[in-house]
């Protein structure tokens, strides 16, 4: 099917314009470069979301950070290892600027242990990252001792983070949400000026070595991701989409165009490929094609016609 003949695939994620709805989930795509050996990232994807970055460098968690679960899922506890905003910009700024030139949006993810740290990281990004199309505030990382998921546990806590970072940039702010109370928390974030919401982050889980009686990763609980959580994620996107007006980026166990299409029908404007990037490095590029084919088969001229088109 020639591109000309195909439906329009461009979407707008709260001010972040994407050539197609396909984005990548933070932490599963490096910062894009690692995938250049598999396909031309900048000419293919709608956007990439970079690894979470904090004001100063974080070491991340000790080994082991990963366990495989039998049930079509993995358990990770990386803990946002990152070189800090300055280190990140120095090392990837040029590459990411190149992605922008090719028409791929670049979403930088902001991490912090406290309101002050979120603010400081946001200020540094605003100052040092002209290449960022927008920012994703991570208030849902289950793998750090302070901040992360704790900052997004309640509507009030989430709203406070949003109040803190909103004044610091005029660029679009997306908020990465935890897999609970997505309707209430989504409304609170929207009220504080979030331009878009992305969900879900990994679902906290636990895997125990029954011989040693110890966790199979470095902390008692960690984040579950993969095909196992897809149906749960689609449900949460649907619940959230019915509660807010801002656009949503649907994330959770997407491995193919059909999985992505479910998210869009449930109300997602964009979608992110996550864990599948690790095991099938060309997955996101394939999803771009499969999604366009689906829109074509559905007989629409614009993918936007299918957002929230689920019929119940």
């Amino acid at each position, binding site marked *: 099917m020639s591109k000309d003949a195909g439906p329009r695939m461009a979407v707008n994620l709260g001010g972040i314009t994407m050539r197609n709805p396909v984005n990548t989930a933070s932490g599963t795509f490096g910062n894009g470069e690692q995938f*250049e050996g598999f396909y031309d990232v900048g000419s293919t994807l709608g956007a990439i979301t970079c*690894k979470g970055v904090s004001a100063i*460098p974080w070491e991340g968690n000790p*080994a082991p950070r990963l366990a495989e679960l039998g049930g079509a899922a993995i358990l990770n506890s990386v803990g946002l290892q990152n070189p800090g905003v300055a280190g990140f910009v120095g090392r990837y700024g040029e590459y990411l600027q190149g992605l922008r030139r090719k028409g791929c949006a670049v979403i930088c993810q902001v991490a912090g242990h406290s309101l002050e740290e979120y603010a400081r990281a946001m200020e540094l990004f605003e100052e040092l990252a002209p290449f960022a199309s927008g920012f994703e505030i991570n208030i849902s990382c289950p793998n750090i001792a302070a901040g992360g998921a704790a900052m997004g546990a309640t509507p009030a806590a989430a709203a406070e983070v949003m109040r803190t970072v909103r004044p610091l940039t005029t660029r679009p702010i997306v908020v990465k949400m935890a897999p609970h109370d997505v309707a209430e928390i989504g409304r609170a974030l929207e009220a504080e000026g979030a331009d878009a919401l992305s969900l879900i982050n990994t679902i906290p889980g636990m895997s125990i070595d029954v011989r040693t009686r110890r966790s199979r990763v470095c902390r008692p609980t960690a984040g579950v991701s993969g095909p196992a959580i897809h149906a749960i994620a689609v449900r949460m996107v649907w619940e959230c989409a019915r509660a807010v007006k801002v656009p949503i980026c649907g994330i959770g166990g997407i491995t193919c165009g059909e999985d992505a299409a479910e998210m869009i029908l449930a109300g997602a404007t964009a979608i992110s490929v996550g864990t599948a990037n690790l095991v099938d490095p060309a997955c996101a590029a394939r999803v771009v094609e499969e999604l366009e084919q689906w829109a074509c088969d559905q007989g629409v001229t614009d993918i936007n016609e299918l957002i929230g088109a689920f019929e119940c």
Partner: protein
Amino acid sequence: MTIQPDSLAGTASATGVHGFEVFSNEAVADGVWRMRCHTPVASLIAPGQFVNVAVPGDSAHILRIPLSFSVAQATSQTLELVYAVVGEGTRRLSCMRVGDTSTMVGPCGNGWALPTHEGRALLVAGGVGLPPIVACARMLAEASVGFDVIVGAQTSAKHVEYLLDELRRLAPDEGCDCARKVLVCTDDGTLGTRGFTTDVMADLIADRPYAQAYTCGPTPMMAGVARLCAKRDIACQASLERMMGCGFGACSCCNVALVAGGYALCCKDGPVFDAREVVW
């Protein structure tokens, strides 16, 4: 090899997704199998690097399986993987039949480097660490670098003997004043001398000078080898093993603690590390 504190740096790697077709997959000893397949990776991969293999048959286990190789022939595009059937994934791998196809991500990581200084090399392998050491020995033999080998195991096992034969089949050292030694030890003395590889190594390095050591095996063993090398100021390369997510530096799951502080990634900065830079 210098490790970048943030391993995600640098330009895009040549790692790609490649198809492979099995043309032989058989048990060469109880618990140890050898798979030979046709794949373009064979002409891209260097000793000590690995491939991350998608093994069909269980989509509930989604991760690929990282495997080191023993032989890669660029001309015939064939790769030989010698693997121990230890878990569910290698069991599935052993079920792949002639003609079966799948994909492998590779070449992954940094492999063995030739010695930077003149002099003899010492290879120290423990049990499951044997295949990568075989690949290293082949590399050294081809580069006409003289070397000796120490192989340690818990007990006499067919697969140890199989890989020892592989080592003995290699071309003898050329232009070396001393003949190559291939020493074996087991914890129970059922094969070679009784004792630990580090004991055998201590005697050997007292007897012969070495410029470079290469080691792969259980972490405690490699730690011992690293200590002995540090004492004698012998350069040491160690091939580490970690549970891996992607195999090419995207997920930061396979972290290795560094003496300099922070972490490197086993899949991208390794699996072969300068033993002095790693926290043992």
